[in-house]
């Protein structure tokens, strides 16, 4: 992601104190434990011009829940800070397509690839066809449509462990769909989905791997 942004001429900073957006806790029912993580995020990033996140589920967490959480904490300064910060927070693909208005980032990735629409990116962030447009502009890519592309991969955070059987069944459908495309790799905007999917692709010894959208966009043609 850093490589792509720098290629496009931007300066990237990485606040080393950042840890986690709190989604895992919040979604599992541990709202109280997630509150300090919100405060930390705001403290770390409040002075940024733009915050780019390679994870649609994290951004969804912030957009959907941070305002409400801040109100619950009850600190008016925090409320203001959250309201001021959130418009500056972007998921990586939407930063490129919506904020910067670019589709061609000068990438090269000569492989057969299929794209999985992560639920948070699809439904919560409304990424639409942004990621696909970015992929289509990649040099040499052979992009194949994934059947049932909008169906959840079954990760769901702690769901994957608390309801392992159902999660695996959902994953089996997703991997079957991926294998049916003949793709060498499956991509998405969320590492949680990809970790989940690759876990099964590897266990089944399919030879198919997963690669984050940012890695594809970072791909450069080897100079001859």
């Amino acid at each position, binding site marked *: 992601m*850093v490589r792509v942004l720098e290629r496009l001429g931007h300066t990237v900073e*990485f606040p*080393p*104190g*950042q*840890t*986690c957006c*709190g989604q*895992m*806790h*919040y*979604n*599992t*029912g*541990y*709202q109280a*434990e*997630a509150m*300090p*993580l919100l405060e*930390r995020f705001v403290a770390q990033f409040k002075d940024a011009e733009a915050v780019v996140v390679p994870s649609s589920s994290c951004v969804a967490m912030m957009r*959907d829940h941070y305002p409400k959480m801040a109100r619950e904490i009850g600190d008016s300064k925090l409320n203001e800070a959250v309201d001021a910060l959130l418009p500056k927070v972007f998921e990586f693909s939407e930063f490129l397509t919506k904020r910067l208005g670019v589709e061609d980032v000068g990438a090269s990735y000569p492989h057969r690839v299929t794209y999985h629409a992560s*639920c*948070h990116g699809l*439904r*919560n962030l409304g990424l639409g066809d942004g990621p696909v447009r970015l992929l289509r502009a990649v040099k040499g890519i052979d992009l194949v449509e994934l059947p049932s592309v*909008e*169906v*959840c991969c*079954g*990760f*769901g*955070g*702690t*769901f*994957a*462990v*608390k*309801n*392992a*059987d*159902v*999660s*695996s*069944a*959902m*994953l*089996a*459908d997703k991997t079957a769909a991926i294998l049916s495309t003949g793709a060498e790799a499956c991509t998405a905007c969320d590492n949680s989905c990809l*970790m*989940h999917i*690759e*876990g*099964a692709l*590897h*266990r089944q010894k399919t030879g198919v791997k997963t690669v984050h959208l940012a890695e594809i966009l970072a791909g450069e043609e080897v100079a001859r």
Partner: protein
Amino acid sequence: MSGTALDPKTAPLFPIAAKIAMGDAQMRKNVRHATDVIQTKRARVVAEMPDWQQLREAGRQIRQHTMENLDFYLEEFERNCTRAGGVVHWARDAEEARRIVVELAKASGSDEVIKIKSMTTEEIQLNQALEAAGVHAVETDLAELIIQLGEDRPSHIVVPALHKNRQEIREIFQRKMNLPELGDRPDDLADAARMYLREKFLRVKTGVSGANFLIAETGGVCIVESEGNGRMCLTLPETLITLAGIDKVVPRYQDLEVLLQLLPRSATGERMNPYNSIWTGVDVKDGPRTFHVVLMDNARTEILADEESRQTLNCIRCAACQNACPVYRQTGGHAYGSVYAGPIGAILTPQLQEMHYAQSLPYASSLCGACYEVCPVKINIPEVLIHLRNKVVKQNTAGVAGLFDVEATAMKAMAMIFRSEKRFRAAQRLGRIAESPLTGKDGWIGWLPGMLGGWTQARDLKEMPKETFRDWWEKRGKNGN
């Protein structure tokens, strides 16, 4: 009589019930086929409506407004229904509702009642109460008939026998209707049901129904159906008893213009379902001479009291969420241990149980949001699920026993790590150390202990990267780029 009723108080935890359910390959195939078909049909008829989103928003506002003025509208309904000759009863809970309906049924002088499919009557296990009082309840909805004769339980709000295919249905009808020669084409099966039930329709004196909508402004009741058995039960008997949750009330007649567009398209993917019946009180020349409505609370006021999950009551029972849910698709409805299954079941059932039971249901979801996308009245089910998870955690961590909750301890520990950069880095280092005995030569972990073993059941886990982003970034900084 149905088999052991789906009872949230005794149902196994969802992960266990799901595992058992998924072992039934035929059921899974049937569920997949059915949900695929309805989803496709729904998508087609919704695509025809350029004002679909405006309808959804109006639906949401109508329902929300109703709940905000529920006391007013219930009183208005009671007034208008009574004025038109109906008798209105109030039931605080399932037990009271059962008692009232059984008394009314017995008072009607019939030892048999014909029933229209009603999830509300299933919710309170009415049929068993009637049987115990010597009144035989005959289900007349084809799916419910299949369920009843097959001694089974409903698995879907709109298509309760969706988990059965034609061969299984034929087998049930052959046995119970004594039709050894019966074919298995859907037409044959429908014919068999028609003959079997027609005799009852023309003879039985008492009918029992639920209600889709109670119209406050007019005192009218609306039933939405497909087969015509509803019309039979509503017009031919002498006595009609209608059971409705207090959440069924709708402010004005005009509001049906929204709900009758949202419901059929969402529930069965039709522009309009075959029959809607609206009747008001009693007209002795057209339908029953005696009409009773039983308004039931049964914990709905508890849900009303929780501002964050109050939207659960907005549900119009279309089951579009069930059809869209990737979890339901895998497990079918019985795994939820309640007549309300799928996404709506995951939020409604625990709340109807006042959070004393069915606490595993809010976790029976990957929070994918497909349900919210299709809900015709825009219930934000994922948000309610998260809210209920919080309630469950608070319950589990309350008091002395709560201090020993394993999951909570782990979550608190992780939260501590995430609150500090130093601890986070240390955890990353520790993670690499801890995983190294589990990591294979190719950099993958095939087995994890304890709770985490759920992951490695079907998946491998990649080892942590040898160089984390943090390491890479810092190295880069030192080298100037």
